[in-house]
């Protein structure tokens, strides 16, 4: 366990230097923090390196740390089928949250990223088809953000929703996706 931790750590440090911070090993997963502009590079490195071979992307998920700043986070869980190791990559994002898409590295990232966009409004740059996945087209706001009420906002279809103005995100309007 310690041997693999130090191997992963050394290989990443060799390639990326100080840019990637190690967050330790807990419950069977090695965790690293990465700045948003390096995520694709790191993923590609972890996937392709012959000693690591993290070839399976388990999951991508968004997190909202409101009211903490920086507010958002994208968390990636990778698995290495040959080595049976797990890695968690955490990427803190400002507001509005933007991060590079890893769809070019794994095709499975497509729907995971669409889900994170739908629920948290995290914009994945370079995603081929960043549309809402669970909520309908034209839905306003991002429901899993901490400041979105559990019952939703009151409107014609939702008489029991919370009072208040529907959220406005002029810089995140759904129609200006690249």
């Amino acid at each position, binding site marked *: 366990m310690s041997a693999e931790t130090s191997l992963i750590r050394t290989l990443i440090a060799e390639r990326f230097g100080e840019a990637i911070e190690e967050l330790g090993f807990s419950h069977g997963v090695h965790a690293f923090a990465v700045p948003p502009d390096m995520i694709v590079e790191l993923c590609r490195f972890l996937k392709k390196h012959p000693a690591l071979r993290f070839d399976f992307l388990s*999951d991508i998920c968004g997190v909202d740390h409101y009211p903490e700043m920086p507010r958002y986070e994208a968390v990636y869980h990778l698995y290495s089928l040959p080595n049976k190791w797990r890695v968690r990559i955490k990427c803190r994002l400002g507001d509005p949250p933007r991060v590079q898409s890893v769809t070019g590295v794994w095709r499975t990232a497509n729907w995971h990223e669409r889900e994170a966009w739908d629920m948290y409004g995290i914009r994945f740059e370079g995603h081929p088809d960043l549309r809402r996945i*669970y*909520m309908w087209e034209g839905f306003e706001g991002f429901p899993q953000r901490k400041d979105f009420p559990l019952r939703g906002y009151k409107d014609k279809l939702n008489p029991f929703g919370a009072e208040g103005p529907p959220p406005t995100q002029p810089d995140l309007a759904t129609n200006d996706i690249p």
Partner: protein
Amino acid sequence: MTEVTELSLPEADAPHAREVLLNLGPQHPSTHGVLRLVLELDGEYVARVDPHIGYLHRGTEKLAESFTYTQIFPLTDRLDYLCPPSNNLAFALAVEKLLGIEAPIRAQYIRVLMAELARISGHLLIIGALPMDLGAMTALLYAMREREMIMDLMEMISGARMHTSFCRVGGVREDLPDGFFPKIREFCDIFPNRIRDYERLLENNRVFLKRTQGIGVISAADGIDLGLSGPNLRASGVDWDIRRDEPYEIYDRLAFNVITRDEGDCYARWRCRVEEMRESVRIIEQCLDQMPDGPFQIDMPTIAFPVDKDRVHCSMEALIQHFDLSAYGFKVPKGEVYSAIEAPKGELGFYIISDGSPKPFRMKVRAPSFVNLQALFGVTNARYLADMIAVLGSLDPVMAEVDK
């Protein structure tokens, strides 16, 4: 020449001018729930598939943030409703890792036993439903007969047939009932012969073979790239089973084979599941043989209700703890955990971030069906509509889990 129906296609319609737009679902028997597929058809050829999901979105993850850990169990039942014990187990394991505790050995055996029963029940449905999608009704009716036996067993254990919610953090809710062992032994005796029946019914059925063999082939590299897991990936020849590779609970004490096939087609995926049911029966029999006596619930009054109710009636501290636990739940130390199990559909993972309160700060479900369904993109391009139904059936998505 026949006239091509005029379409209101979105931009750049010139290259698609011959194509017909067809809505399959959201209410259609072969979509196994509320899946809507927008198909661009050129004759019977599927030029493009655009799946629309979310018709069953209940916001499980958002809801979980306002529930205590014990209250979340019923939510997990409703993810993959064909096999709730697996979902319960995955969630309980994640929380137990955060708490740094382990359930007593007997409880672990009970959980594994239920999870394997659930695996059989989940596989039974798809083993019957895939042929039904292709026009062979009989298998499903037989499969339902055996599934009924499992439902009865579940009812015996937990009182509920589908949404058992039987796991608790640190154990299970109750011990196994009297008279359970003979019942399940009877099931283990009968069931392997019934598996043989399904095989005999379908493995030489020419229509079934024609419509599944060589259809929807996914290579191992593609499967990994698309994030497939469970029997879907093993049917492509990837020898990966979390039960064996990252053993949880008491799986390291049990002997079972990991079933793989090399073809990667619909038939291989169907076949993998049939053979996995045999292995599940083996696991269940070993559980029954090895199951020790002992507590079924961890002895930590701050986390689990005391088994001996008299303690609550006689001791002030126990009463307060009982009240505290039922009113506010238990606190989980700050931290985060990703814990995955081999659910019937594949890798079911729970990622939980705890801020030290009795409710999770963030709970993410890595639902295998969600990822498996996405693979429909990868394999059905330039295929016939009828083949796509077979591929969809063989990938075995459960929409409740896809939509969370």
